[in-house]
């Protein structure tokens, strides 16, 4: 088991390095750098001014060197300008003495995530606050989504082919077929617009960042939960339906055990193994939903930050965002594999 986790960790690190290098490569292509220079400086910069801006800010080093600096395995860049020195490890223009005192290496290995050009702040700080906001959203999504999806799946799978099953399955299919930007728009239209007049909830969740109430937070949570719910419910239904045809359930029925007891005591435990994996693997999908919903409801969390960073080619913020999301994806995969082994003794890791 230990060896398995170690090997998975190795693959995880290799994957994150490859992935961040791809992001690094794409964001450091010259047209992207030019766009960055023009948004940071002004839009009427000449080509020479763009080159000088990029040179002063260390963007013109060769790509592998820049990547190693970002990782923290090569010393950060330093440039001499007319009134002092600029470098990766210092902010702004400083004197040569101050430069000598500053640390030479400053990459993520040293805990320095870099500087965000859009939000003008430390990337580590920005990501941690935004992640906190998204964690709040995700927590409530999970609270709403998991129990209702399992309930839906168990109720539908309990008596396969019955009318309840048909109705609930159709509902589950409908929610999986509805991407967040469609369900979000419909929910806002029905529950938050003045045109229909219900106005039960707020159409934006900006206020929920500081002070989340049922009123301003329910619609975004529901929008994300709906999309994931259908899939989990269908998996639960399939696994429940399979368990209900097993020999030991038939034995229990013949013994005369009450139907509700069969479902609760005999079937449920075995039926929930498969959905566990599915719930864990839903995290990466939810990440997508988070980006759409946060944009739609203007909730300034992690997904919203991703859109801002990507739209403005904020290289270091984008790298931070991708590191975090890759880790989320890979860690959930690992947990789902390990959890599967624990829940199902018939499977072994090797």
């Amino acid at each position, binding site marked *: 088991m230990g060896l398995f986790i170690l090997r998975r960790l190795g*693959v995880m690190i290799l994957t994150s390095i490859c992935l961040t290098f791809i992001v690094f490569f794409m964001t450091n292509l010259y047209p992207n750098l030019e766009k960055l220079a023009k948004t940071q400086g002004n839009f009427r910069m000449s080509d020479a001014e763009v080159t000088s801006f990029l040179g002063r800010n260390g963007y013109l080093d060769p790509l592998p060197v820049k990547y190693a600096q970002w990782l923290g395995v090569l010393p950060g860049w330093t440039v001499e300008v007319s009134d002092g020195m600029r470098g990766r490890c210092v902010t702004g223009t400083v004197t040569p003495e101050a430069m000598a005192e500053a640390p030479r290496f400053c990459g993520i290995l040293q805990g320095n995530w870099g500087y965000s050009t859009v939000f003008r702040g430390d990337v580590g700080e920005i990501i941690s606050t935004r992640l906190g906001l998204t964690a709040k959203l995700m927590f409530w999504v999970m609270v709403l989504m998991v129990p209702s999806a399992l309930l839906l799946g168990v109720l539908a799978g309990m008596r396969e082919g019955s009318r309840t099953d048909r109705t609930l399955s159709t509902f589950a299919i409908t929610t999986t077929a509805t991407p967040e930007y469609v369900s979000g728009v419909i929910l806002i239209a029905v529950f938050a617009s003045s045109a229909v007049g219900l106005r039960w909830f707020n159409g934006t969740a900006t206020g929920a960042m500081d002070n989340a109430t049922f009123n301003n937070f329910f619609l975004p949570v529901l929008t994300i939960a709906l999309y994931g719910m259908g899939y989990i419910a269908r998996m639960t239904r399939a696994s429940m339906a399979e368990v209900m045809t097993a020999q030991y359930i038939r034995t229990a029925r013949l013994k005369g055990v009450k139907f509700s007891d069969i479902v609760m005591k005999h079937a449920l435990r075995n039926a929930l193994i498969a959905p566990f994996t599915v719930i864990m693997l839903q995290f990466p999908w939810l990440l997508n939903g988070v980006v759409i919903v946060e*944009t739609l409801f203007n909730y300034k969390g992690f997904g919203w930050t991703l859109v801002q960073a990507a739209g403005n080619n904020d290289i270091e913020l984008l790298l931070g965002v991708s590191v975090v999301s890759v880790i989320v994806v890979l860690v959930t995969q690992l947990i789902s594999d390990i959890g599967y082994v624990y829940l199902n003794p018939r499977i072994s890791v090797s």
Partner: protein
Amino acid sequence: MDPLGWGEIITRILIQFTPVWIALGLTFGLSIAFKRRLGLYGKLFDSVIGMFGFALVMFWVYTAVFGGAFGWIVTHDTLSQISGLKNKVPGSPVPDAGANGLYPYYLMGGDNLARDVFSRMIVGAWEVMKIAPFATLFAFMVGITLGLPAGYYGGRLDTFLSFLANLILAFPVILLFYLLVTPEIVVTGIPVYMAGVLFLFPIIFLTILFNSRFFTQPARRNIYLVVTLVVGLWIYLGIAWNADPLGLISFPPNLLVVFVAVVFVNSPTVFRIVRGLAMDIKTRDYVAAAQTRGEGPWYIMLWEILPNARGPLIVDFCLRIGYTTILLGTLGFFGLGLSPESPDWGSTINEGRKLLSIYLHPAVPPAMALLSLVLGLNLLADGLREESLRD
């Protein structure tokens, strides 16, 4: 003139769809009449859910073809703005319609730029139909060509390809879109190179397919291969490199990025499905029999394993077209790739959402359209799965 009431709006919309109703009626009449001779397709008409899904899908297919390609159903031009109709409610009359020879009403109202919402929704269906099925098909070609050897041979090749697939799958899709589908990236030419690689796979796939089957009959094989290579490479040069020697085939660059991005995102999942199926099927007796007969590995993969994996693949194909539609909508929603005035559903929803709390009608029709198409594809896949499991 007064705006129309809801009853009249619905009647007029139904009349506008007349060609679609006729086509749907013909399709269903013929299919049900001959359903015993049509194999899996015919069996679809035994399941209510499958039929309902098929009806929804075909409704949008016919709408897209008649509306987008022939221009029958649309009432107004998708880009022309008529002053005075900005954000007007459904059923608003068009001023001076008779004099200008225009349709007298905006059936689903006007959007923020005073364009007809109804016509844009219809043409939006055509935008989806132009990209989604083909992108899915290409993703399948890539996934099958790489997934079969990975599952059949296993070992290093499998480890390497699986690592690549997992790498792409670990990317959040939206981040990937933001990195790939920007004007700056188009300038660097990366999408063209990616197209150059990805679009080679269908040609490789067909070449191996024919060669492995007919290499014992060189005359026949040569005909197939020459046709595949000439037609394939001609289309390939046209769409991937925009270098068609005859100048007939070309592909707008911003559409190419969207297409490449969608194929790129979909193929790793297909790869994983095909790989899993191949690993399962290669242990069967008929594969062992083929190996004993001395058949080559590619013959076994493409003519023994692949036909026996067709059930799950067809089902997944339907689901994946739906997913591709969702992805295209996502691209439009974030304003990536397609031009802002393009009538595709994602862009229209994105535009409409900004005024959603006051005006519903610009955003809701494309949203419902997308929902019903994807729902139809999901139900169709469900019906197919049920019917293919039955025998």
